[in-house]
């Protein structure tokens, strides 16, 4: 191949495949080879699939026979380790599921297969999606390709690093409190979380069921959108998916107006991130957008709400890991001891921490004070956003308060790690679509992310603004 496939976007690669400039087998082989070479350094992948090349060849044959192929036909894609691919190991980067093989395809995986995508491997993550650095993986941290002394972010660090380091053209992640957007920001790629209810969670190992969404990583906004369009749709297997026809349409303002929650972002943000943020706002203004300050009076409580609701749901969702039907089994003296030992051995520190926190806030005597209250405040935060969207079409803020930190820097203080989520969590709490786009780098070369949040089910607006905000 004279075209270097490593520098291509997914969209360009798809065009080249359609034109016959190279085969899917050649394309996938290039990515697999590079992934194998780099994984010792980056640790983006937990496994590269040995059937990837034969899948690529099948796509080539179908193309040669003139068959109608999907929008992702022949494109190498990486999938986060908490999304089930039938017959493949899915471990959520945990010892608990190290030997577990998925017994069915997640709905998003069925859709990827129908679209002709070639799934080349499963990516590293924080264990059970709990973390902001991928340091909580039971199988080693993922390094940031821009500076391997720093973290890739989390929990979808492997997927972000894979796209950033050209080890896959596209990747899937999951986002409960920022786990797609934050690593996208740290690794200098595009990462997007759809509105809650846009993408089926069937086959995604549940972390916090009222907050989780699967979403795309890409090198460009167009690539992320290409993948997004394959993932969406109502699903009878996930009753929380929403038919878009039931969501009232919005009329955009003219000019398109972006709101900035100034009070929320005025403190604690790395100065170079604020500078990049203001530069991008100027760029948007010069493109004809109106940029105005807005107030989201209760948004600063999002993190506290999140760290009550999420652990509560986690403690419930992870109760299924008991060594009975699947996963690790540690033998105790009786059945209760089986559970206690299996879970003691199978779960890492952060997972235990969150299960315990969730058990506390849901326990008798505390349920109303913590969980009940957090649910009520969630409704208030949702209303703050609705009120703001009466006046603006999108909301902009930095993705993270700081760039990628050094490995080990935040592992001793869980609360310090949690505070990194402060700007990403509100979109999950309010169920809104949000995206992080690259916005330059710091003076030491670390990527910076610019975040846009759009109204419920207004992904069109989200992608449109994102394309204009993107800074390579």
């Amino acid at each position, binding site marked *: 191949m004279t075209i270097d496939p490593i520098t291509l976007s997914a969209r360009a690669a798809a065009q080249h495949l359609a034109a016959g400039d190279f085969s899917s087998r050649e394309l996938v082989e290039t990515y697999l080879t590079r992934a194998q070479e780099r994984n010792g350094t980056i640790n983006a992948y937990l496994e590269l699939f040995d059937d990837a090349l034969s899948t690529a060849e099948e796509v080539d044959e179908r193309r040669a026979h003139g068959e109608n192929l999907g929008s992702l036909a022949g494109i190498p894609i990486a999938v986060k380790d908490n999304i089930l691919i039938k017959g493949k190991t899915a471990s959520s980067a945990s010892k608990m599921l190290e030997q577990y093989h998925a017994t069915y395809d997640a709905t998003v995986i069925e859709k990827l297969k129908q679209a002709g995508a070639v799934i080349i491997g499963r990516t590293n993550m924080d264990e059970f999606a709990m973390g902001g650095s991928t340091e909580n993986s039971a199988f080693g941290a993922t390094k940031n390709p821009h500076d391997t002394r720093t973290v890739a972010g989390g929990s979808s660090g492997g997927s972000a690093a894979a796209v950033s380091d050209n080890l896959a053209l596209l990747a899937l992640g999951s986002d409960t409190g920022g786990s797609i957007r934050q690593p996208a920001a740290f690794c200098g790629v595009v990462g997007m979380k759809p509105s809650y209810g846009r993408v089926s969670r069937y086959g995604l190992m549940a972390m916090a069921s009222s907050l989780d969404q699967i979403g795309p990583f890409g090198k460009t906004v167009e690539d992320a959108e290409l993948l997004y369009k394959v993932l969406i749709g109502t699903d009878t297997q996930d009753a929380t998916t929403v038919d878009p026809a039931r969501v009232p349409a919005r009329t955009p303002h003219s000019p398109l107006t972006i709101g900035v929650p100034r009070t929320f972002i005025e403190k604690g943000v790395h100065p170079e991130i604020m500078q990049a943020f203001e530069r991008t706002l100027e760029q948007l203004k010069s493109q004809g957008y109106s940029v105005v300050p807005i107030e989201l009076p209760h948004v600063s409580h999002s993190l506290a709400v999140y760290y009550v609701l999420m652990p509560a749901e986690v403690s419930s969702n992870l109760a299924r890991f008991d060594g009975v039907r699947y996963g690790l089994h540690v033998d105790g003296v009786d*059945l209760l001891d089986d559970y206690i030992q299996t879970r003691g051995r199978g779960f890492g520190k952060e997972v235990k921490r969150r299960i315990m926190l969730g058990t506390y806030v849901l326990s008798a005597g505390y349920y109303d004070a913590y969980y009940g209250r957090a649910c009520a405040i969630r409704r208030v935060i949702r209303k703050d956003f609705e009120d703001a969207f009466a006046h603006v079409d999108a909301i902009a803020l930095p993705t993270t308060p700081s760039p990628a930190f050094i490995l080990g820097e935040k592992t001793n203080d869980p609360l310090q790690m*949690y505070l990194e989520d402060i700007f990403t969590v509100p979109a999950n709490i309010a*169920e809104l679509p949000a995206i992080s786009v690259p916005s330059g780098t710091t003076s030491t070369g670390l990527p910076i992310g610019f975040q846009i949040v759009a109204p419920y089910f207004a992904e069109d607006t989200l992608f449109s603004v994102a394309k204009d905000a993107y800074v390579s």
Partner: protein
Amino acid sequence: MQKTITHADIVRLAELARIELSSEELNSLEGDLGSILNYVSELSTLTDLEGIDRNYNANTLRADEHSEESAVHTDILLAEAPHVDREYVAVKQIISKRHDN
């Protein structure tokens, strides 16, 4: 809402969550949970709680009938179970002499 979490609390939580913790883990969790609960206790100070619900879901209950042939997934599911006895997942005796089941 603001209450210091005690060692006895942590031991009780570990029982409820069915997780074995070493004494080191118990100690460090006491500190961690204490500081996190302290952080989230700010929620108790909010008074004006008028918010909105959002629900565009349709009734998605399926008909109460078999959607698949019986036993079609048995083999693939049993293959993942740690202990199997014929076509059953096998576990230890359910009722035991311990008082807190």
